[in-house]
């Protein structure tokens, strides 16, 4: 049995575990003495970027977080919105980028496990997951291994838990070669009056530990997530955490059952910085103190020090505060599910955390100063010097043959069908999935009601890197558009803001601008931000990723009976193009993927136009006027039109498009394709006119060819061939 030898405490050793000179001094002032090693470790975890949001706080305040539906905004484990019929939705998204780069399978598994615990600690039953993934170029070192591991891990966890993964996003760009992004979203539902909070109260109430035993896994994961990558990351390997979805499934059922006993005061999962953040945050929120007897913490192997116990990130663990005298009721439930329960301490009124171990005091620190009053930084901000140059309008080469251009785009991993990925995810379990992966937004049935839940995941990192403000707004706008295509009214969004090192002024500028862009869009489109997560330090050897604010938005569909498909349903339907067509190629996929050119300011985002379009689409769906709705986004008109031909039974179309050549791929925002029965056409056009949305009939569905007249040219291709290219490209690129 080994006991780690603890280094002496000084500014040096403090830095070695992530505390700056100033932060170390701040801690000494708070304590009025030198901290011991355990206290230092606890503080470095609590004050890590990951736990304290010290560099992002001042900007996140700009988000609109209130709305008619919002019951709980940011600050809890997850946000809560009212979705009607007495139900609430609880959702959040979180990153697990660094662990997934080191060990993709376990990293993505534990990412999903963590976000699911955030949901069921709130008393909600998880019913859906999504995953937003960003990989590097497929031929980059380790990339195939990373892709395979991440996809297996996300499936491995959700499939075992029996929670469908119904949507997500997958992008590929060289900026992620050395730092992939794995962002996991989860949503749960609960009855209005059944929502739980992680707010400790009641002096003398026992603190219970449930779930897996504590090992040395993931010690300093939180600080690791707050550092850049370098060769040493290899040495950080022992911090890899192993997920056990089976234990989590049992933990889920036991927690929901135990909450029904009414004997639980507060409950909190052990995520980053495990026992430390869970107990301190619970007590911090409740303004109480607590005493922990570390000899009672269940250990997987003997010999862990207080430092290790407090910082271990062993998975599938929870702490809860029970009502004094009713411990038995709670413990019975967990034992019935075969889980270990340990009474490890109690709530006090001192406002301090006192940890005892082997008859001695292992730590004694004031809680609030370490949690609520963690350091906050306003980092220097600087706009990139070459911004004007980057915004210079690009030369747009005309395609020699638009059909060939279309086929080449459909063959890129970026545009290829992501079926190979989501077919490895159980997306039908729980029997709520009305529309799974493959459409604009996933649609879930809200059992026992006529209505449904819709969710989508969007962001365009190239836009964000060329104009963070527009990019941030565009991500929100596209999400609203995707929801509108299934007739859903947004009720809230959660995000995962993935950025480089905030100590670099340009990165802090990117962050500020993205948050502003998102906030403007959220206000105009009235979508509150109810939860989220920030992941900084996504850079390798000085090369930082593009700013990637993954947006996950949730909406409510009042009535599912008129749900349109994202693809063409039947021959003879009239196709209508909504929105305005302009020639906009800044940061476009056409230039990037066909001409290896990233240049120019991304397309303008007209939020009022987006609002009009979304209202129109929701109206058309509600009135049952349309069979098909699919939005235009990356790749523009021709890509979306082709995608609309790729239904369960591929179906062709003949259309006429006002603009010609490269403009078929222009990425002008605020557009969508709808298809309707001939008899409904007039009412559709009428509705568009009343909504103030430009609309024109461009053709009709049918046949097995895609035929597009634009300018003088005629493009025509067999849908079967296009579909073959699109559906096989990803496995081919992966060498399978």
């Amino acid at each position, binding site marked *: 049995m080994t006991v780690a030898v603890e280094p002496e405490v000084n500014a040096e050793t403090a830095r070695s575990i992530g505390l700056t000179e100033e932060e170390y001094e701040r801690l000494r002032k708070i304590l009025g003495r030198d901290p011991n090693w355990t206290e230092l470790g606890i503080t470095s975890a609590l004050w890590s970027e990951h736990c304290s949001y010290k560099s992002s706080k001042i900007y996140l305040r700009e988000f609109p977080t209130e709305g008619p539906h919002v019951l709980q905004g940011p600050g809890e484990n997850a946000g809560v919105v009212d979705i009607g019929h007495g139900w609430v939705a609880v959702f959040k998204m979180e990153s697990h980028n660094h662990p997934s780069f080191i060990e993709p399978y376990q990293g993505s598994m534990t990412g999903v496990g963590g976000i699911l615990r955030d949901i069921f600690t709130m008393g909600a039953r998880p019913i859906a997951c999504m995953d937003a993934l960003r990989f590097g170029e497929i031929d980059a070192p380790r990339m195939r291994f990373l892709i395979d591991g991440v996809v297996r891990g996300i499936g491995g966890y959700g499939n075992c838990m029996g929670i469908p993964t119904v949507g997500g996003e997958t992008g590929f760009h060289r900026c992620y070669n050395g730092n992939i992004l794995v962002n996991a979203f989860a949503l749960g539902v609960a009855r209005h009056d059944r929502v739980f909070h992680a707010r400790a109260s009641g002096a003398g109430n026992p603190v219970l530990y449930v779930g897996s035993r504590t090992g040395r896994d993931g010690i300093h994961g939180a600080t690791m997530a707050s550092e850049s990558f370098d060769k040493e990351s290899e040495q950080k390997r*022992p911090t890899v955490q*192993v997920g056990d979805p*089976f234990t989590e499934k049992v933990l889920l059922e036991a927690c929901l059952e135990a909450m029904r006993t009414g004997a639980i005061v507060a409950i909190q999962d052990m995520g980053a910085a495990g026992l430390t953040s869970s107990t301190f945050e619970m007590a911090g929120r409740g303004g109480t103190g607590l005493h922990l007897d570390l000899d009672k913490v269940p250990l997987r192997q003997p010999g862990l020090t207080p430092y290790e116990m407090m910082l271990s990130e062993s998975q599938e663990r929870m702490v809860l505060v029970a009502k004094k005298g009713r411990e038995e009721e709670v413990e019975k439930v967990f034992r019935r599910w075969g889980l270990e329960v340990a009474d490890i301490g109690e709530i006090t009124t001192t406002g301090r955390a006192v940890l005892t171990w082997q008859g001695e005091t292992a730590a004694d620190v004031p809680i609030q100063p370490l949690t609520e009053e963690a350091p906050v930084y306003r980092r220097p901000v600087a706009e990139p010097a070459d911004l004007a140059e980057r915004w210079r309008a690009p030369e747009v080469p005309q395609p020699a043959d638009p059909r060939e251009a279309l086929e080449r785009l459909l063959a890129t991993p970026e545009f290829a069908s992501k079926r190979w990925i989501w077919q490895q995810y159980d997306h039908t379990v729980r029997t709520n999935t009305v529309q799974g992966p493959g459409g604009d937004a996933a649609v879930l049935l809200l059992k026992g009601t006529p209505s449904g839940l819709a969710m989508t995941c969007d962001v365009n990192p190239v836009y964000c890197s060329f104009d963070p403000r527009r990019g941030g707004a565009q991500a929100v706008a596209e999400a609203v558009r995707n929801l509108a295509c299934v007739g859903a009214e947004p009720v809230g969004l959660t995000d995962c803001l993935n950025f480089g090192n905030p100590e670099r002024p340009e990165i802090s500028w990117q962050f500020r601008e993205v948050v502003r862009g998102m906030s403007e869009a959220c206000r105009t489109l009235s979508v509150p931000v109810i939860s989220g997560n920030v992941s900084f330090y996504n850079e390798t050897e000085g090369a930082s990723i593009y700013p990637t604010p993954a947006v996950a938005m949730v909406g409510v569909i009042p009535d599912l009976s008129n749900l349109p498909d994202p693809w063409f349903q039947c021959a003879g339907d009239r196709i209508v193009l909504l929105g305005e067509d302009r020639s906009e190629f800044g940061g476009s996929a056409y230039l990037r993927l066909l001409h290896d050119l990233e240049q120019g300011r991304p397309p303008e985002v007209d939020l009022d136009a987006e609002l009009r379009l979304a209202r129109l689409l929701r109206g058309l769906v509600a009135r049952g006027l349309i069979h098909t709705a699919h939005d235009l986004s990356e790749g523009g008109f021709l890509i979306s039109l082709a995608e609309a031909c790729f239904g369960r039974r591929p179906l062709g179309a003949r259309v006429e498009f006002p603009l010609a050549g490269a403009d078929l791929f222009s990425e002008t925002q605020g557009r969508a394709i709808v298809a309707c029965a001939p008899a409904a056409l007039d009412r559709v056009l009428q509705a568009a006119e009343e909504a103030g949305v430009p609309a024109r009939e461009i053709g009709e569905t049918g046949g097995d060819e895609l035929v597009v007249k634009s300018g003088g040219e005629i493009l025509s291709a067999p849908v079967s061939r296009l579909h073959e290219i699109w559906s096989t490209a990803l496995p081919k690129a992966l060498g399978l």
Partner: protein
Amino acid sequence: MIGKSVKARVTVYPRREILDPQGKAIRDALTRVGFPGVGDVRAGKSFEISLDAADPRTAEGQLREMCEKLLANTVVEDYSVELLAESAESGIRP
């Protein structure tokens, strides 16, 4: 390249310090069905590989390389390599 066929067994186990949920589940099950004497159980993988190699030393080198490259995930797993008697048939019998 001409060489004789060597038979080897590669064993891959989760690293000691790392959680082994499968081993734990099996241990619990064994205890439940009447093997109270069971202590620790670790669940790993075993590969029986026959390969052509000039000599045992080259073979062993290649096998270790296979582990590093493919058979083991050294972030979470340890591996060991043993060369079996060169008989064509495996050591496994019911």
